[in-house]
């Protein structure tokens, strides 16, 4: 089977056409047909299948059958590929309009993870502080967060919310951790796209406010328990604390260039490093 297509001066070797595969397939169908009609059909099917199988085997053994297919006349062959007359336009590196789509430099993704964790921790500390001050229990906010996924927490009263529940704790930590890391990662990408001078303002305050606003209309359904008990001021303070702390950690990290920017810059016939210096 490996020697099926060999080149020769006058043409290419290709497998000889053969009816045996089709005959074997027909045999298989007739065997199945025997099930629903009568065994005679199945017998014919077995016979055909055997003939096909043996014919097929002889086709391959000891050496697969081949025929030489001559090359077509030169006039009918494919024309060689012509060089395209089209010019290729290039992105002007660093031009304002394109920066939003292709950030030239992003923060390290690892900084996103640490930033997310830091922001998440800050948020958690604040939330638990709130719980301690107003409800005298650090478990209160944790249980409320977990209520998004736990039906038992959803209908719990304040006393229950103040207790420690392992399942609620696990759910809250997991979901909070995952969300924090993901948002942190998002920050590494988003921050360079934001207006350059006020990154801390946009990333730290406006973005948390935006997502709080987006959450607001669906809060009832996402987490009814939290919606029922929420203190909006503290809620927003917590969100902003995430934005500020997480954003800060990300912001402070070194920016790295992505492969894409490099090859993109190189594509344009402009040396990447020079362009960087130009900026």
């Amino acid at each position, binding site marked *: 089977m490996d020697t*099926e297509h060999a080149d020769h001066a006058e043409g290419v070797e290709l497998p000889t056409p053969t009816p045996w595969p089709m005959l074997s*397939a027909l045999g298989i169908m007739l065997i199945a047909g025997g099930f629903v009609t009568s065994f005679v059909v199945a017998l014919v099917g077995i016979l055909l299948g055997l003939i096909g199988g043996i014919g097929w085997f002889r086709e391959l053994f000891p050496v697969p059958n081949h025929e030489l297919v001559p090359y077509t006349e030169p006039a009918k062959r494919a024309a060689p590929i012509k060089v395209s007359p089209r010019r290729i336009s290039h992105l002007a590196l660093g031009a304002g309009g394109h920066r939003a789509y292709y950030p030239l430099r992003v923060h390290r993704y690892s900084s996103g993870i640490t930033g997310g964790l830091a922001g998440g921790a800050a948020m958690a500390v604040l939330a638990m502080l709130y719980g301690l001050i107003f409800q005298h229990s650090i478990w209160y906010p944790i249980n409320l967060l977990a209520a998004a996924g736990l039906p038992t927490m959803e209908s719990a009263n304040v006393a229950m919310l103040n207790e420690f529940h392992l399942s609620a704790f696990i759910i809250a930590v997991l979901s909070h951790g995952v969300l924090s890391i993901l948002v942190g990662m998002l920050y590494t990408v988003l921050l360079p796209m934001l207006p350059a001078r006020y990154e801390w303002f946009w990333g730290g305050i406006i973005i948390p406010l935006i997502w709080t606003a987006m959450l607001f209309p669906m809060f009832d359904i996402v987490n009814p328990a939290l919606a029922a008990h929420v203190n909006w001021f503290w809620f927003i303070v917590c969100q902003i604390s995430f934005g500020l702390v997480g954003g800060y950690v990300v912001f402070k990290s070194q920016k790295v260039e992505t492969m894409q920017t490099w090859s993109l810059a190189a594509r344009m016939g402009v040396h990447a490093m020079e362009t960087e210096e130009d900026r």
Partner: protein
Amino acid sequence: MANPTSSLKEVGTELAPAPPGREHGTLTAWIQDLIFTVDHKKLGLMYVGMAWLFFIPAGILASLIRTQIAVPNNHVLGPEAFNQAITMHGTAMIFFFAMPMVFGLANYIVPLQIGARDMAFPRLNAFSFWTTFFGACFLFLSYIFGPGLYGMGAAPDASWFALAPLTSKAFSPGNNIDFWSLGLLISGVGSVTGAVNVMVTIFCYRCKGLTLYRMPLFTWMVLVTMFLVVMFLPPLSAAQIMLVLERFFGAKFFEAQAGGSAVLWQHFFWIFGHPEVYILVLPAFGVISEVVPVFSRKPIFGYPMMVAASVMIGFISAGVWAHHMFTIGMDSFSVTFFAFATLVISIPTGIKIFNWLATMFGGKIRMEIPMLFCIAFLFQFLIAGLTGVMLGVAPFDWQLNDSYFVIAHFHYVIVGGIVFAVFAGFYYWYPKAVGRMLDHRLGLWHFWIFTAGFHLTFDPQHFLGFLGMPRRIYTYQEGRGWEFLNMLSTIGAFLQGVGAIIFIINMIYAARKGKIAGDDPWDAWTLEWITSSPPPEYNFEQLPEVRSRRPLWDLKHPEDPDWRFE
């Protein structure tokens, strides 16, 4: 699997002389050629031809179904005929339209795209085609040989997922269910051997320089698809073997009286059934990933992510099957798990949509017919994906499952997604296969009528689902609020039929009178366009050598080739 490099040097020694008696032109010669051929291009076209051949009866059945439920208390089809129609429509469309279409495109395009002369096992390829074809014939023979009254045949009538106890001898005494299971078993053999063949071809027969990382996306998606076929068709075959054993030899797999479980069948069926959706849709993604860049005049955005997303889809699709069974009374943990897996699969799919979008951004989009179909695909697949998210949220699914919403959802996937991608691929590759272009004006008619028909058919069905209409009912009473929407839907179905007829006319017309295409009508970048249209039997005079993902771009723009940036 054989290692191709080890014996490449070893040239077959016994060359047959030019085969006698194979003259061309006459009908018998043509038929003989069909039966004898082992050429991947001819077999690919045969697959595609088979797909359209079975598209016609399945489409007619669809319009009959729609006619029956256009108005309440209708009597076009009786209950038996209706159940047969839905079963045959579903089965034929999935297994004998969509699957052969996938295999046909893969057969035709993949060896050309990877610069190979043929498939790895050309004779096995012919065998795969013929088993698929005979399996389909076998199923449709039930209309003649089935156990119907008055000498008429009767097709299988237990719906395309043939839920277990209904298919047992006690509830389906005739042999029409046997036609279903045996027919699909036969064609299943063809699909699996075909898939192995394509996989080996892709792994072993790539031309020089074509690393996996440079492979065209269509080929990549086909590769993932074939993995899925090989992994997930056997569960269906196994379940069907059990069904055959049960119906012919009295085995007790799904019989309730013996303690058998009807749920087990559903698990087996959907372990196959859900990956099947991806088996069909991934090649469609592949087509889109070929067409969108060429007509936007930009390389695909985020190639590595596209590949990674496909592979991820392939993996995750193995773990979501039970979302078809949310209403079966599973415990809450399983329900949550499968809801989770289902929602997760929307992430790589979303990445793909964004990447196509980003490919279009900043491009110069040429609104040729293939691109129009791609754009429609993107819109419809977006909606299909979102309704899929709705269905994935298990509590919502408890309302929507088995309702017309589901019908609308998966027709959005299969018609709005896969069929539109197939049309796009057809307009794109038809010139390569035939040497002539499909007509642009007819193409526009086809596109607009079919798209309008599609939306008229399936948009109202979402709302029918909201209004509580269950699927697979052959009639309904007045006053349930379903009349108007059903009527709309039926009109849309006929509009789609008109669109499909225009397409067929276009194909026939173009084959005779279409504009001569030339080797590379779209100014594209992958290897299939380097050879003549239609390609010679041996594909390439000399096997090409590639240095980047877009070998033809490199040749067309020697001043700024891709390989410089890899």
